């Protein structure tokens, strides 16, 4: 403990509250307030309305939410599968360090570059994905694999290899060892990777904005477009929707993880 005296502690807490409040909480509060504001000319918003929220939950904007959820689940879950596979394969291999570096490449590179790369690579035959939803899903998959891989690889480091050894000595085939011992023991890490991937995917803009076709526009891209057109209140309402959806999804995934740990 660095601060011992009572006033000293009170002072540090107050300083923390101010910094946290201004930098973290205030923007949230402003977004929520703007989502329900009819006009905002003075210090506080006026003419409260639910109209923006209705707009954000209808037509194109509602479609955006569905697109975001589909992308997050498809991209995120594929990323968990690939990331787990990669981590298991790299663990204890002499190419482990190379695999580590390769898997972390997508987060080391700016996401806009990842998006541009995909756009350039898949805009021509033989693999033409530009203009389809798959290029968005793949962009998310590529970015989220890094996080999934990292989470699962870190968990693998902590698992004693003797579990798999003992399972094998009891006569279990490698497949049985994988499905009945190694993967169940990694379940908390895998669930955690899934939560992280889905949450990050829900908020991804950088790469998405480079590759998305008009038919597959995610919520963050819609928010960007709305705010770009000056429709700040609708953008705020859409942001609120995104926030709520993400929190719900992550909370649900986290509950799954909680159960896995209890077992």
């Amino acid at each position, binding site marked *: 403990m660095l601060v011992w005296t009572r006033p000293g502690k009170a002072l540090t807490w107050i300083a923390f509250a101010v910094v946290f409040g201004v930098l973290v909480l205030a923007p949230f509060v402003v977004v929520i307030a703007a989502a329900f504001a009819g006009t905002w000319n003075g210090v506080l918003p006026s003419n409260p309305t639910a109209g923006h929220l209705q707009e954000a939950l209808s037509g194109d904007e509602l479609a955006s939410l569905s697109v975001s959820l589909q992308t997050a689940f498809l991209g995120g879950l594929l990323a968990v599968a690939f990331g787990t596979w990669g981590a298991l394969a790299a663990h204890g291999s002499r190419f482990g360090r190379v695999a580590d570096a390769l898997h972390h490449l997508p987060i080391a590179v700016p996401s806009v570059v990842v998006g541009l790369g995909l756009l350039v690579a898949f805009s021509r035959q033989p693999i033409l994905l530009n203009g389809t939803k798959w290029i968005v899903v793949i962009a998310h998959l590529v970015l989220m694999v890094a996080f999934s891989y990292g989470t699962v690889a870190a968990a693998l480091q902590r698992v004693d290899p*003797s579990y798999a050894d003992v399972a*094998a*000595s*009891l*006569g279990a*085939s490698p497949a049985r060892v994988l499905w*009945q011992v190694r993967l169940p023991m990694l379940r908390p890490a895998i669930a955690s990777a899934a939560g992280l991937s889905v949450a990050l995917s829900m908020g991804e803009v950088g790469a998405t904005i480079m590759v998305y076709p008009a038919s597959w526009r995610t919520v963050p891209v819609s928010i960007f477009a709305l705010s770009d057109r000056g429709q700040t209140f609708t953008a705020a309402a859409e942001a609120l929707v995104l926030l709520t959806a993400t929190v719900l999804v992550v909370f649900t995934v986290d509950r799954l993880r909680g159960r896995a740990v209890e077992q």
Partner: protein
Amino acid sequence: MTVQLDDVSVHFGRTCALEGLSLTVAAGETVALLGPSGSGKSTALKAVAGFVRPSSGRIRLAGQDVTDLPPAKRGIGVVVQQYALFPHLRVADNVAFGLRAARKPKAEVVRRVAEMLAMVGMTSYAKRFPRELSGGQQQRVAIARALAIQPKVLLLDEPLAALDAQLRADMLGELQKLRREVPEVAIVYVTHDQSEALALADRIAVMRDARLVDIAPAAELYATPPSAFTASFLGGANLLPVESVGEDVKVAGHVLPGVRSTPGKELLCIRPHAIRLGSEGVPVRVIATQWRGSSNQLTCTVDGLPDVSVRIDLPADSDVPALGAQVSMVLPAEACSLVPS
């Protein structure tokens, strides 16, 4: 069924973890691999189990070469140091793991699991998860799980090392009892604790620096250790340099009556409890005394042997000489043996 290691070496990169181990364990025999950490004893066990691949040498089970077989095809029961009970499976499912892997009929699995849990006295814990068990209970489940597949060979890697002293003594008794329950199984028991090895093993293989130092029946190894390392590691014997004068042996200039000199063996080995204090003996000076409840241990220096200290265990009820006192120690010939230095 015998386990046979034939000149087995294990290298990890440049490090040599096991160097040319040859060893045979007969059906129904318990062999302890005893040695300090880094002596290669665990590596030897892992090689038999198939967890590490020998860089040279062959391993045979009942005459069949299994060197290139994966662990799953060897049918060996293994209990590792931290037990490695599968944390997501209940006790009964842990014990059933090997039986299900072998696709045994359901009824047989249930029957065999009940039998095994009864044998280790864990029947009422069948529905618990491993983390709800104490160390000793986890150990019993690990043994039940290893024996459920009816192995002909059981490998135990420091099974008592993770337990506290009192529990260790209890479990040692349980292991002796268990030994009698599976009389035909060959057991390899890896430990760094000489008392476990003496209590459980028919033969003890003493290991050091990746090599086998000595192997012999436990009693023989204790009574007449063939090497200085075994003498001190097994039972903490005192080692005193001797001079040979004709047939006689001298310690610090004093002739030991009844001990006959042997060429090439220049160290006298004697257990701390075998030394008595008397009037006619080798003069020593007491530099430390330690009361151990059942005995008093003296640490003494020998006049004329500057680099040697001698430990003497005196019965608890005997008089303890004061610190710095000059006493003389009697080395009974029947308790002395000579080893090469």
